[in-house]
């Protein structure tokens, strides 16, 4: 199925879920509120059957702009692809977890949580996955400031004597 047909199919069931996108965009934008239902539809609908979550990526559009998550889906049965994007505010942004629908999402959502601070509601085990548990802040946000010390270890390069 082409993107427009998928959009029509999703829009027929969940008309409120879709957010208008720019002309020529190669993805569907969604609201977080309906995402759990839409994801279920994408997975199990006879015509859509997106049974593989290829990738889940967090992104940051810059200070003051929303954070987002992009889901790249693929259907082994129908051999079509889809990208879904969901954007949430920087502070307290919440997206329903799809870890129960696509198992791939479990660790990928933890990664997006770890590095961008996006909360996935309903995730079975939402902890940091790469950084240590006691790390502060979300390093891939564009307004991130690296700490001076981590557990007493200096973090920035000591440049004294360089000139």
């Amino acid at each position, binding site marked *: 199925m082409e993107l427009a047909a998928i959009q029509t199919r999703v829009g027929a069931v969940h008309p409120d879920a879709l957010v208008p996108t720019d002309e020529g965009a190669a993805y569907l934008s969604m609201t977080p509120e309906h995402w759990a239902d839409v994801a279920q539809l994408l997975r199990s609908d006879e015509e859509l059957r997106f049974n593989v979550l290829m990738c889940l990526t967090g992104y940051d559009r810059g200070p003051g702009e929303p954070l987002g998550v992009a889901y790249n889906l693929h259907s082994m049965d129908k051999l079509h692809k889809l990208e879904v994007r969901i954007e949430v505010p920087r502070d307290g942004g919440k997206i329903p977890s799809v870890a129960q629908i696509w198992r791939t999402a479990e660790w990928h959502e933890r990664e997006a949580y770890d590095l961008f601070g996006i909360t996935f509601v309903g995730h079975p085990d939402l902890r940091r996955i790469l*950084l*240590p548990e006691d790390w502060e802040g979300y*390093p891939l946000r564009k307004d*991130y400031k*690296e*700490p001076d010390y*981590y*557990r007493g*270890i*200096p*973090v*920035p*390069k*000591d440049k004294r004597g360089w000139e």
Partner: protein
Amino acid sequence: MAVSLVNRFEQDNIIVEQIDNLLNWARAGSPWYFQFGLACCAIEMMAAAAPRYDLERFGAMPRSSPRQADVMIVAGTVTLKMATRVKRLYEQMANPKYVISMGSCANSGGPYWQYGYHVLKGVDLVVPVDVYVPGCPPRPEALMQGLLELQKKIKEDTPLRRVS
């Protein structure tokens, strides 16, 4: 340590030597290393240990436990998360212990010196380093030279006269 032999009786197979030198000879001849393969440099360390370069001809054998190791070869990028573990494992090694820092990352943060928020800018910030091997990654020959330098250093040690 043949050079410093005090006396040698060819007929009786007896050698008179300082105990210091005997200990150094034994230590320098078996620097079993605790392998810290943390990133790309680890591949070169493995190559150095493999038959083509064969670190074992210098008595260096890879160990996976700090209790059995004399030398720690830190090969690769030390993240801050790993740094706390590197330090703990170093503390678990038995004395005498030595550290070889292999590659730019372990020496100084390497390519991550500026924007690596998660990378330790040199493993010498957490453990004392005896030999630095430069390179990104250093070739196995370079690591071998580092090990030979360490052996030289060990041979100059005076374990029985150490004031501490």
